[in-house]
């Protein structure tokens, strides 16, 4: 018997080099591969050129009042917010920037990109600019800059790709660095353009704050630990909403004597809270339950005894903490987190109640939040509040308890069955009918709650999808480890469910952002309303509806489009669908 053995292993052949197709071949392959595709291409090309020329001729005609937009930039940003108090808006923006910076350092988006991709984007931008330059009417002043700039960009991109060679395709550039570069570029552009100093300087400071927060965040992650910081940041994001809202709405004249008079109440409750959490986390379930019963009675007693509102609320929060303590604070780490959490909760509660009882020094009437500022506040608030609602309703709908399931299902189906505008009208016009006379919320708060209630129902369906996608073994394993239902949900099933539906949640957030424009119908002055009513109704800019609407559409488009691109990247990174 003969055995054939190869004398030595051949080295694998290198993959064939991708042939660079010439422009002609590309055209043949993609545009004229069959006769009907050829006809289609010609017809489409003629149609597109004709349509684009018409659209540009319309948009760039001398009759269009594009000049009304730059003088109204402040109105677009904040509407009628008192001008001397604009610093407040910059401060709240800085709060968001700090949180964004810390979050980016903690969660560390790890996406990478290559020079080739960036250069291709540059080249595509150049092509688009050049094409637009060809299509605009010859009288348009920006025509030559578009043609020249486009050509330069095309050249830059093409030469760059040629020079980098195959190295251009290596994904080595961190996405975060690219974003930072884009930010710096945007700053440079702002400084080069004739923009008011009152805009340039604060934006520069904001970007610096963002960078500083990110840089501080890195050593902070090492010092505190990633997990703790993630939890703390999540809470800070939720708390940032009332902080921002109160800072924008109030210039507090704090009644110090009242606040000081709380101290003899608050300090004992704080100490009692520490002791109660300590006891509840150590003493075992039975005794903890007894303590809880005691605390509930105490909270009810405090509620009906004349005492400061802050103490009544604090007692309720404490009951929540001790209820959760035996389940989640039985380890040393958990106990420490609970202590820190209780201190933080006390601090924020005192802060919020102080601001809520303080007179405001802002000289305004009615709802004075507006513009892009309000749009973002609504989006942020709606998003943050819709999460607890959505998760609660999803858990209710998948629960084994029939009444809870019935209630959650009813809520979800009813809210999903009606349009958002009716929910907004409900909050604006119907809810006040059910409240005692004199008690009514600010229009902005009502809008945020309505949007959150609406979006929460959709979110609940997404989360439910995630919960149902978790293998049964996970539940059984958690049960086998002796976990309670609360522990199983919080530690095993919910985290996995949320992770599985992140793309769907991002999609929901995008549609929430677009939906904020509906508040214009119930009379809030958000970005869309400024564009539709407020600016075109000024005497100097009558008849500029289309211009303002197009501008607003472009602004919304930029935000939603970049969200959706980011979510695509995220989806690919998580690989949820392909795992």
């Amino acid at each position, binding site marked *: 018997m003969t055995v054939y053995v190869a004398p030595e292993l051949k080295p694998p052949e290198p993959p064939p080099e991708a042939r660079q197709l010439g422009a002609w071949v590309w055209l043949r392959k*993609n*545009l004229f*591969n069959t006769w009907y*595709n050829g006809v*289609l*291409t010609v017809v*489409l*090309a003629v149609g*597109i050129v004709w349509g684009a020329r018409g659209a540009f001729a*319309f948009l760039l005609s001398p009759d269009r009042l594009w000049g009304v937009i730059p003088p109204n930039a402040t109105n677009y940003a904040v509407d009628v917010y008192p001008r001397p108090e604009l610093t407040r808006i910059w401060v709240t923006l800085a709060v968001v920037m700090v949180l964004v910076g810390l979050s980016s350092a903690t969660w560390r988006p790890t996406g990478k990109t290559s020079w080739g991709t960036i250069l291709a984007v540059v080249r595509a931008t150049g092509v688009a600019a050049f094409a637009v330059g060809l299509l605009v009417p010859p009288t348009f002043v920006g025509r030559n800059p578009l043609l020249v700039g486009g050509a330069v960009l095309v050249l830059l991109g093409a030469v760059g790709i040629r020079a980098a060679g195959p190295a251009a395709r290596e994904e080595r550039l961190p996405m975060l660095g690219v974003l930072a570069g884009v930010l710096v570029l945007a700053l440079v552009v702002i400084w080069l353009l004739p923009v008011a100093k009152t805009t340039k300087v604060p934006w520069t400071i904001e970007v610096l704050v963002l960078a500083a927060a990110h840089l501080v965040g890195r050593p902070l992650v090492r010092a505190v630990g990633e997990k703790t910081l993630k939890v703390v940041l999540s809470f800070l994001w939720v708390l940032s909403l009332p902080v921002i809202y109160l800072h924008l709405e109030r210039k507090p004249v704090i009644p110090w004597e009242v606040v000081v008079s709380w101290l003899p109440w608050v300090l004992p409750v704080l100490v009692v809270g520490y002791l109660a959490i300590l006891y509840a986390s150590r003493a075992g379930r039975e005794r903890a*339950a007894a303590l809880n019963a005691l605390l509930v009675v105490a909270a009810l007693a405090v509620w009906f005894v004349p005492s400061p509102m802050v103490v009544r609320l604090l007692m309720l929060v404490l009951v929540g903490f001790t209820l959760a303590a035996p389940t989640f604070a039985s380890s040393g780490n958990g106990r420490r987190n609970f202590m820190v959490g209780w201190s933080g909760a006390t601090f924020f509660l005192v802060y919020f109640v102080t601001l809520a009882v303080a007179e405001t020094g802002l000289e305004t009437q009615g709802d004075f939040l507006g513009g892009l500022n309000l749009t973002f506040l609504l989006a942020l608030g709606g998003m943050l509040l819709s999460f607890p609602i959505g998760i609660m309703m999803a858990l209710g709908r998948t629960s*084994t*308890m*029939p*009444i*809870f399931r*019935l*209630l959650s299902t009813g809520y979800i189906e*009813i809210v*999903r*069955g*009606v*349009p*958002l*505008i*009716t929910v907004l*009208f*409900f909050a604006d*016009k*119907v809810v006040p*009918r*059910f*409240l*005692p*006379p004199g008690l009514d919320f600010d229009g902005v708060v009502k809008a945020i709650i309505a949007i959150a209630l609406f979006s929460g129902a959709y979110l609940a369906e997404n989360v439910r999808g995630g919960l149902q996608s978790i293998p049964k073994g996970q539940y059984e394993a958690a049960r086998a480890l002796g976990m309670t239902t609360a522990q199983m949900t919080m530690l095993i099933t919910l985290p996995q469910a949320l992770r599985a539906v992140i793309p769907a949640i991002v999609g929901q957030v995008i549609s929430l952002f*677009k*939906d904020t*424009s*509906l508040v*214009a*119908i119930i009379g809030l002055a958000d970005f*869309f309303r400024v*564009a*539709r009513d407020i600016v075109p109704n000024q005497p100097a800019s009558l*008849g500029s*509806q*289309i211009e303002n*609407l*197009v501008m*607003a*559409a472009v602004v*919304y*488009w930029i935000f*939603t*489009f970049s969200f*959706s691109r980011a979510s695509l990247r995220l989806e690919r990174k998580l690989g949820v669908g392909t795992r």
Partner: protein
Amino acid sequence: MTQSRIDATQTRPPLWRNVTFLKWATQIGVLVGLVVLAWILISTALRNLEAQGLSLDWDFLTDPVGIRLGEGIFTQPASGLEAFATAIVNMLRVTASGIIAATILGVLVGISRLSSNWLLSRSATAFVETIRNIPLLIQIVFWFFLMTLFFPTLEVDASGPAPGWLIVSRKGVSIPWLFPTEVFWQWFVFVAGGAWAARRVYRRRIELLEETGRETHPGRWALGTFVLIAGLGWFAHPIAGALGWLFALVAAVIAAIPDFAFQLLFAAVSIWLGARWIRRFLDSRRTPAGLARLTDDDYFRMGLAGVLGLAGAAVFVAIPQITSLITDVAHFVFAFLDQKFDFLRTGVPLRLGRPEVVVPGRFPQIGDTGMTMTPNFFGLWVGVTLYTAAFIAEIVRGGILAVPKGQTEAGMALGLKRSQVLRMIILPQAFRIILPPMGNQYLNLAKNTSLGIAIAYAELVQVGQTLFNQTGDTIQVFLIWMAFYLTVSLVLSSIVNWYNRRVKLVER
């Protein structure tokens, strides 16, 4: 070992550690809390209303109202009911025409996105990405302003582009339209019958094709049958006038039967439905080894079904108004149909109306001359159509991509042409995947018509707001909104579900 087992069976856990008890206690506690909260809120609302001189009644539906609506069947409604009827018809007009247009456009764009033609697929992508990422409200207002500010003004008769056939102006777009005459319904009976017969013929021809393998032209046969019967009906429609007697008879029977008989009938039906649900539920739990163990959740469901059935019966017995409302509506419908049919009525079922302008700057009332699309309708219709089409395009694209590639290859291997593969192999399979999300988009479109309020299109939300601004009856108007939109959602989703069940693959 034995000892501990006996312990476990004999000493039940104390009440505060009994999971079943704790679960039910929590649920009932929460439910009671919610009921108390609702009671407090409602009593507060009643007190508030009284203080403002309002009440929670439905008089505004029948009282005269002094509002004007932009368009619709009653532009100057005599009562709230007429106003809402107008609004609902307007809303359904936009929804129906929007669904048709968005489906056609969406499917075309979705297929274009997968085209091998670079320019076509890129144009389709640009369309989708532009439309999807701009709030719908902006788009609707944009189209509305585009028409009212930049379309040509309306002149007498000289208005074009094709005077007498197509008029495009800032007051609206008007096209020729076929309007039903008084004998339309008699002819419609023939049209419906023709469609039914055509369906039967189509199936028969398909069967024949499958038996013999010959080409039997089922489509042509069906079309021929339909055209023949409908064409015959065009002249012979007075024959269908005999149906008028039937309708009159039914109306008379409904009027003759006393209301309490209907009350008892409806109550019995309600109880029967509840009992049937319980029986089916029990059947579904039956296994070869006997009835499966029922959890407390199962008992809750059956109990709820039973309680709902009994409650329905009780409501029918206790409140005779509901029954009389139902019988009144039924009687009205049949009496109305009776009027539409008459043995002696002759004439042409359809009449052509051509657009014309008599007074400069105004279109005549809808229905007289041509079909006129107002700027408000135009803005809303174009807005929701484009927006929904962009989403439908994505669904269609996803559905086609989800069909395994082997299907295409197998089709090509059988010698089918590319277009045949798409039509006979890919699309029918993609359709099953596409259908459920498509139904969601139709629902979204129906709900999005509520944005017509931003451009004063007289749909339900706009009319409701106008009404409650006048009367202050916000709670009632809100309930009407909710009832209507939930009904539309329910109807649309049951149609989609029914269709979905029909086209679904039958699996084991």
